[in-house]
């Protein structure tokens, strides 16, 4: 129960925080078509987060609901990777992040459709279709920006470079992931790296971009060790809910 709950929080928090960063693009996108697409992707991820957080509250026996997890945990209780909490940067950084996140998540959900946990398997089955679209959308922009103007090429390359130190954490197996992978419930993310690298290589090649060669940054998100950015994000996200702890909405 404990491991499954922790695992649901990892996958759920990744989706919740990634969705928040996409929500921040709202009314700031480069085109209306992107407003629609970014909101759609944000909604899909929010939906995944809700199912996963609800599952966590069942699995750990506390019966906490999705909102208890989203609004009344402190920063150190969040299990997302640092990749998703990094501030949006420019559109190039945001698209690079969405590509990396979606490529990782698609590989993950694809394996997870075979999970012995029926809820995880169902979330994954639904998520695979959604995240395929997310990845294709992000890849489309990475290619157009990479192979667009010299300015957009530079920004895309800079965005990738800024992002790349955060990539490794996605593939570092946490003990919980390791145990659940052995039990046929979860996925060991290190087994996804080859597929991810191949997908990225293909897209970056088409985009005339170089894969950055930078050292990985400090990880720790899966253990609740986050960057300063998450605190600011949660302050905003949780503000209304916490101002009215007795309220129902």
């Amino acid at each position, binding site marked *: 129960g404990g491991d499954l709950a922790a695992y649901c929080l990892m996958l759920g928090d990744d989706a919740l925080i990634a969705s928040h960063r996409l*929500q921040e693009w709202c*009314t700031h996108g480069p085109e209306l078509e992107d407003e629609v697409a970014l*909101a759609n992707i944000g909604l899909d991820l929010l939906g995944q987060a809700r199912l996963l957080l609800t599952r966590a509250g069942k699995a750990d026996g506390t019966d906490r609901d999705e909102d208890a997890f989203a*609004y009344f945990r402190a920063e150190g209780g969040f299990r997302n990777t640092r990749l998703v909490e990094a501030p949006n940067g420019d*559109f190039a950084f945001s698209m690079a992040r969405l590509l990396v996140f979606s490529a990782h998540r698609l590989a993950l959900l694809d394996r997870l459709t075979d999970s012995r946990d029926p809820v995880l398997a169902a979330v994954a089955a639904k998520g695979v279709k959604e995240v395929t679209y997310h990845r294709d959308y992000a890849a489309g922009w990475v290619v*157009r920006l990479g192979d*667009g103007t010299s300015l957009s090429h530079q920004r895309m390359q800079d965005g990738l470079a800024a992002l790349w130190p955060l990539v490794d954490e996605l593939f570092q197996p946490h003990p919980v992931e390791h145990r659940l992978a052995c039990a046929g419930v979860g996925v060991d993310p290190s087994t996804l790296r080859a597929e991810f690298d191949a997908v990225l290589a293909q897209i970056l090649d088409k985009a005339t971009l170089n894969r950055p060669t930078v050292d990985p940054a400090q990880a720790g998100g899966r253990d609740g060790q986050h960057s300063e950015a998450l605190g600011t994000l949660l302050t905003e996200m949780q503000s*209304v809910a916490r101002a009215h702890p007795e309220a129902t909405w």
Partner: protein
Amino acid sequence: MTSALQEYFDATIANEQRIEPRDWVPDGYRKTMVRQIAQHAHSEIIGMQPEGNWITRAPSLRRKAILLAKVQDEAGHGLYLYAAAETLGADRTELTENLIAGRQKYSSIFNYPTLTYADVGVIGWLVDGAAICNQVPLCRSSYGPYARAMIRICKEESFHQRQGYELLMTMMRGTQAQRDMVQEATNRWWWPALMMFGPPDADSTNTAQSMAWKIKRHTNDELRQRFVDMSVPQARALGVSLPDPQLRWNPEREHHDFGDIDWVEFKRVVSGHGPCNAERVAIRKAAHEEGAWVREAASAYAEKHAREEVMT
């Protein structure tokens, strides 16, 4: 020649048939329609801001999903409407530039601030409610692409309206602080919502021609009365008061009488001096300008690869 076309146009209108993009239309009709559709499109896009302001702070994940979906729908409405305007020869980029340069207007209602989460509900209830009163007759607009866009938009808007009202119902069953928020938001939005129907018929300049062209179906005052009559029982069911001491049922008219609208405020807001006009346009302008390099990259890419296809 033109006179035969004019006759055909007049007959189409008279027979309640629809004008389509291929049809000849008088210049005045084209200009009026483009202005009407563009203002409507701009309103959808600017209208994303007051609610978008609360997405990241929505107090439950369910409300967050509802709000995000709603704001996304508004972007979608903007897209259909700009597409409808393009069927009349307008250019979307040009329309956007008209908006951010202040050459074209959008609904004044979006120049009021959203100060608490109750505003999200009240916008759904009153602002979308007023919009629906205005727009349902437009589903019978003589201009086909606009009429069809309105059918889809009205369907989604009434969904939004119900969701807004449901949020308020839930809040009214919550804490006293929540009830106070709902009442306070109702107080702030009621009069601006009444202004959404435009100036009184006596001062409304374009109405006659627009009615003749069947791109407007009811007068401003008729629609405003319909909205008031619809809202009073809804307010009662919700348990909020409407901030108008003169509001009462008039059994002779079989309508509600209501107080005088502050048309001086209306004109101030319409002419660009409402509480949020500057911010709303500034945010749209910034998004447009900051997105320029992205759009340029997309064009450059498309051009490069179109060329390649020709060459290989």
